[in-house]
């Protein structure tokens, strides 16, 4: 070996995370650029993949007319309320199932059995109970969000270090204190992964929900464009939904970083 010897390099350096936003913007731009290129190349019929610029143009039209904002507002309201209800109940049930083996024994099979029931099939029942208006739409979104949040919260709770629960018990916590002060924070990373999944599902389901008796909404925009085979409008609707998804997951990320400050 050389006189210099071997200098020790930091093998664990990659554990330190330094976020670089520019990269993400770059990839998204590259994908959008590719889309434009493919759309213009003529490889695929513009009927399926019109170039990005054309999609933006058609989007600009309905933006200028203000139509977009009423769609956005309607959907945001449905997504927001559905998400709030579904995520709230999901966290509650998930934590309960993770915490109490009895509750889990009783209810988990039911959850596993009802989870794969297609939401489209449940809609008629929901309409029967809740009417054709907003309530059934919010309920469908809520149902969709409920499952990933509940399943992740349950797994998160089951994953909590029992030693920490013991520490809390020894410091005088009751069951409820343990749940609130140990189990919830300890399973937050997993609950947040569930919430992120829930956001995506809420956005997906807004399309299902607006299949029935909707007169506005991004989902309505997408569905009616799909039915009418107006591809540019359809793609603009999808872009709106993606944009909403990005925005909501950014928002969740911020909340997460606020609530989980103990990891770097």
């Amino acid at each position: 070996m050389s006189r210099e010897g071997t200098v020790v390099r930091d093998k664990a350096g990659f554990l330190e995370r330094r976020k670089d936003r520019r990269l993400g913007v770059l990839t998204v731009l590259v994908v959008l650029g590719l889309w434009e290129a493919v759309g213009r190349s003529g490889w695929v019929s513009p009927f399926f993949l019109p170039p990005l610029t054309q999609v933006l143009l058609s989007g600009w039209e309905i933006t200028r007319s203000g139509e977009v904002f009423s769609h956005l507002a309607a959907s945001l309201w449905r997504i927001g309320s559905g998400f709030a209800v579904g995520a709230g109940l999901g966290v509650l049930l998930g934590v309960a199932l993770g915490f109490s083996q009895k509750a889990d024994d009783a209810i988990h099979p039911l959850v596993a059995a009802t989870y794969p029931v297609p939401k489209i099939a449940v809609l008629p029942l929901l309409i029967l109970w809740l009417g054709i208006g907003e309530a059934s739409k919010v309920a469908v979104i809520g149902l969709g969000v409920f499952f990933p949040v509940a399943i992740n919260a349950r797994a998160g709770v089951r994953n909590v270090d029992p030693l920490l629960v013991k520490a809390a018990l020894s410091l005088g916590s009751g069951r409820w204190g343990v749940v609130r002060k140990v189990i919830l924070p300890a399973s937050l990373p997993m609950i947040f992964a569930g919430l992120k999944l829930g956001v995506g599902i809420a956005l997906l389901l807004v399309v299902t929900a607006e299949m029935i008796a909707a007169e506005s909404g991004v989902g309505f925009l997408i569905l009616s464009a799909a039915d009418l085979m107006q591809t540019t409008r359809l793609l603009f609707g999808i872009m709106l939904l993606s944009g909403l998804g990005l925005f909501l997951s950014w928002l969740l990320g911020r909340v997460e970083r606020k609530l989980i400050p103990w990891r770097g």
Partner: protein
Amino acid sequence: MRTVVEGVSKAYDHPKGPQTQALGRVDFAIEEGEFVALVGPSGCGKSTLLNIVAGLLAPSTGRVRFHGASLNGRPRTAVVFQDLALFPWRSVEGNVRYGLEELGVARRDRRRRAREWLALVGLEGFEAHYPHQLSGGMKQRAAIARALAVDPGLLLMDEPFSALDAQTRMDMQLELSRIYEATAKSVLYITHYIPEAVFLADRVIVLTGRPGVIREKVRVDLPRPREERIKVEPRYVEYLERIWGLVRGVGGAAEGTGS
């Protein structure tokens, strides 16, 4: 508060293979205001016993009872765990405040008391740090502050000073001794460092190897308050040697002779 351990034993199940008999039958009492130290070889069931007394583990046989006046505004027991079990999502101060919150101490008092205890264990300036940002010894001191802060009737400590350097350890022993003498709480104290057991305790219980049973209970008749100079007194050294002998008599390191 008087604590009575009656015929307690513990066997752990093991899915593949036989049970582990961790602890044989043990009987003893911790009198009100008594400081009992527990020594014994690694794996003889000390932590197991402590967890049972804390009500965090069900014994296989026997039971633990508390006698005595109800404790106003303070919990029956508090534990310093061998594995510390600090809450990673709480700052050092937040960890110490935990028990105070559960006791319903007013918000302002919680903060003041938490900071007082942290200063006592030498952690001022680290209140806002999270556990993963502390050194091993600092984590241990944070865990000690957390348990002391709730002022329990019975303090259960599982090798609380094992990660401290000699100097800090001596300082902490003196501090603990002072606190004990001032508040007259009961203490059950696990240590593998016999001089510490003798220095701190009113009684030293020596366990055999796994499954641990009581080999001997030794009353330590040294004057209080205990101060550093006690360590050169002949009676102190006598106790040391006697307990050393008892521990050695146990045989091989992790090999219990049973009973």
